[in-house]
């Protein structure tokens, strides 16, 4: 049993709170994401991390409707971005120069495993929806 749930039930059993108050507290606890709902003020752990990156494509072209549904594990994404560390230094400089020329001030040399991990972590709130003519593309994490 969850520690917070136990505390609420104990308070109800000892008569410190009424049944209605306990019900409200339990409902509020269920709405609160895990990790931020601990009673002692410290988080009991991070919220559930997304496991998969989903790409959904629907196309109603003249050849008939086509649907593509791809589910990629986030681990693959993590492993993939780490491959950036394999880019030789000379190639990185050329990529950086090309990016600058295209108006993207991005330095590949600053990519470290920690930064990459942070980047992937922040993808959980990332959603992309493209709706154009007969084509719909949706990209999200789950």
């Amino acid at each position, binding site marked *: 049993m969850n520690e917070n749930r136990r505390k609420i039930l104990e308070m109800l059993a000892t008569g410190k709170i009424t049944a209605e108050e306990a019900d409200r507290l339990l409902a509020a606890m269920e709405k609160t994401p895990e990790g931020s709902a601990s009673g002692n003020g410290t988080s009991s752990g991070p919220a559930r991390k997304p496991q998969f990156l989903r790409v959904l494509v629907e196309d109603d072209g003249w050849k008939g*409707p086509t*649907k593509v549904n*791809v*589910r990629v594990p986030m*681990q*693959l994404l993590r492993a993939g971005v780490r491959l950036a560390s*394999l880019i030789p230094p000379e190639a990185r400089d050329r990529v950086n120069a090309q990016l600058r020329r295209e108006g993207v001030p991005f330095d590949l040399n600053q990519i470290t495993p920690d930064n990459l991990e942070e980047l992937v972590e922040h993808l959980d709130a990332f959603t992309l929806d493209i709706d154009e003519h007969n084509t719909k593309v949706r990209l999200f994490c789950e």
Partner: protein
Amino acid sequence: MKCYTVGVPFVLLVFLLSPLVFLAPVAFIACMVVGVNPIEAARLLWRVLTALRGTDVEVSKRNRTVLVHIS
């Protein structure tokens, strides 16, 4: 609608890609030439390969659906 499901076990995937091991000396030399640690490169590639587990690709066209799942 007809649905074709192809489950690809990870072991089979490794087995199918195993002939690439013969290219290892070439890859090793290439890594040395461009200044990349070959062991680190091999480790990262293995990591990518193992991370493929759980990948699903589903394509539906007209009345046909093909689902490829790497388990």
